[in-house]
């Protein structure tokens, strides 16, 4: 179990290799890897700002909620901040469980909450200026599927 917020690059493969080790009960590992996408073809960098202290707090709360909802054998949330180039990994989550359904559901839950509830903000730096990335309505809407019906 770990939550990490860092400026340094990470190695997705090495993280997964170290993941869920030590138990014989992990049958399914789901990972999500977020990569800096260059939609315009003119982006030179992505700047990621965050709220030190609250970020770790929010990610730990999201992780605890996922662990309460699903039977996970391991869980990782790793998010970078600072200046990244197009093509660079921004963040990853990994979830381990006995079966795939729990691992998939928990990974999607972590991503949905992280997107809209963890204090990160992205700014695209281009040849022709910089612009803050706007929140997407569908990211907020994605949260509703995890809330109790009623």
């Amino acid at each position: 179990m770990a939550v990490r917020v860092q400026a340094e690059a990470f190695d997705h493969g090495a993280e997964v290799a170290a993941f869920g080790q030590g138990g014989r009960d992990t049958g399914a590992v789901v990972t999500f890897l977020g990569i800096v996408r260059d939609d315009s073809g003119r982006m030179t960098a992505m700047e990621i700002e965050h709220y030190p202290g609250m970020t770790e707090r929010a990610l730990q709360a999201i992780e605890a909620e996922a662990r309460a909802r699903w039977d996970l054998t391991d869980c990782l949330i790793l998010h970078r901040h600072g200046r990244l180039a197009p093509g660079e990994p921004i963040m990853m989550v990994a979830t381990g469980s006995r079966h795939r359904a729990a691992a998939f559901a928990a990974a999607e839950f972590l991503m949905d909450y992280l997107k809209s509830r963890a204090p990160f903000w992205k700014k695209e730096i281009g040849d022709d200026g910089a612009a803050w990335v706007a929140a997407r309505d569908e990211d907020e809407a994605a949260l509703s599927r995890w809330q109790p019906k009623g």
Partner: protein
Amino acid sequence: MTIDILYFAWVRERIGLPRETVETAAPTVAALVDELRAREERYAAAFADLSALRVALDQDMAGFDAPLAGVREVAFFPPMTGG
């Protein structure tokens, strides 16, 4: 009371500083926002549309109607865009 106020992303850029410490008697976040708006044009601009802003009290998300009693740190920022 003394409160640290933090600004992030375009709120920080619009106001021109990442954090400041204020003396206030505002009972709620909304009352604190009114005080800030009255200070200078850059504050009025940053807080022009509260629906575009989020607030955290002592690092927990809160609403603009939340009371400030006992709060040490207030943060204003746009909707998050991590992941």
